[in-house]
């Protein structure tokens, strides 16, 4: 007990992480089905927070030509609804293509579990044998989700960008234009001071180091993108999105400073897979 207390109080995080990632895979036979059933139940009950998550693609190879023709007719009927979706996907594709270099060295790993305590982290089914190392960036096609903090023979643990101990330099931007104007383009929004994001839990992070005047001058609004702009992270990831601004207000304790809350598009703790950028090390 005494040893546990000393460890909890005095041990630096680097040493604390040393034994982690050793037993992760041993729990996979139960945690993976539990996560899958939970995700399914959440989808069925309509409580899923991942509104933008792409639907699974059905691959029915055994359909007859008549059935396929009927399906095409049904799809034509809903073409008007799909048009708006296509526009949205075009914007997505353009953004992914813009940041595609980051995806070249990535390898996808299954998520085994989310944090067992009050922190924001996930465990991956990855090990040193897969080339995963502490400090590597973890991302999805949507956003940067965190960094590897521990790797063992049985798994790797990722500290999410929404964790209280995770901070990084960022910048803002928004997509402007329309398909009629020749497509969307990402326009950076400059601020006087370099914004610093820090996780606040609950799948959110905040930027609290900008004064309100600076935010008003930059004309930041809800929905603007927060992207990585930190030299400590790999070059390929500069400009990679972290999330979108949810709210802008005054800080209670320092009213001259702005309180910007942002969130990734997906619930990072509920991801089924995540990609580790194997060539990157912060």
């Amino acid at each position, binding site marked *: *007990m005494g*040893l*546990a*207390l*000393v*460890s*909890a*109080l*005095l*041990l*630096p*995080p680097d*040493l*604390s992480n040393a*034994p*982690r990632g*050793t*037993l*992760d895979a041993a*729990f996979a036979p*139960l*945690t*993976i*089905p*539990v*996560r899958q059933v*939970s*995700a399914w*139940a*959440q989808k069925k009950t309509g409580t899923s927070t991942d509104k933008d998550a792409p639907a699974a693609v059905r691959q029915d190879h055994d359909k007859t030509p008549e059935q396929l023709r009927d399906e095409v007719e049904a799809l034509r009927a809903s073409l008007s609804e799909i048009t708006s979706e296509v526009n949205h996907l075009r914007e997505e594709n353009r953004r992914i293509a813009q940041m595609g270099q980051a995806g070249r060295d990535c390898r996808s790993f299954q998520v*085994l*579990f*989310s*944090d*067992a*305590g*009050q*922190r*924001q*982290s996930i*465990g991956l089914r990855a090990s040193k044998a897969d080339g995963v190392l502490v400090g590597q960036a973890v991302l999805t096609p949507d956003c940067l989700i965190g960094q590897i*903090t521990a790797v063992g023979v049985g798994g790797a*643990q990722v*500290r999410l960008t929404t*964790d*209280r*101990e995770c*901070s990084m330099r960022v910048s803002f931007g928004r997509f402007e234009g329309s398909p009629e104007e020749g497509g969307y383009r990402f326009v950076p929004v400059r601020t006087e001071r370099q914004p610093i994001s*820090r996780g606040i*839990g*609950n799948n959110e992070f905040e930027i609290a180091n900008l004064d309100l005047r600076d935010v008003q001058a930059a004309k930041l609004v809800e929905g603007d993108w927060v992207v990585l702009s930190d030299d400590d992270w790999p070059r390929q990831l500069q400009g990679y999105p972290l999330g979108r601004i949810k709210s802008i207000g005054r800080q209670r304790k320092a009213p001259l400073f702005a309180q910007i809350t942002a969130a990734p598009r997906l*619930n990072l*703790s*509920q991801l089924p897979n995540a990609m580790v950028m194997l060539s990157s090390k912060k």
Partner: protein
Amino acid sequence: MRWLTLFILAYVMLAIHLGIRAFITWHEAAPNFVLIAAVFVAINAPRNAALLGCFVLGAMQDLFTQQPLGLQAFTLGLLAIVIVRNQTTIYREHPVTHFLVTLLAGLASAAIILLHAWVYGKLHADSHLSPAAGVLLLDALYSALLAPFIIGLLQRRRRWFAFKSGRPSGFNLRGAA
């Protein structure tokens, strides 16, 4: 006491905790299945077995979180000491007992975590551990609400664990010496 059965319980409860936690959060609060398992062990097992069982449960939980190593082990170990001391005064079969003991254990756990965050912040200048007190309280309440169902179910299968009531005799840390 059957340690293999206790180990299986620890494995299953921790796996459920790890797998389901992210999907059943309410205002960031989620039930702590490991705490519920620890309460079940602490109200039933002999003193030394309960202390060791809860400590190991906490240590296992520590391996799957970003919190400093040893925090959960210390917390559950300390809770086990308190619960075991009052073992003879509680009616371990009653759902209200399960609810109240889990609620009090959750609140005590929240207090320890908050105190730890404060002390840790003083000792490590670059630390930003500041868990929201409200979330910890909701965690405790959420766990307490589920406890009567889970502990009630486990109480029905109590004989699988072969707990020995009364003074500790089945397991003694000093016995090996």
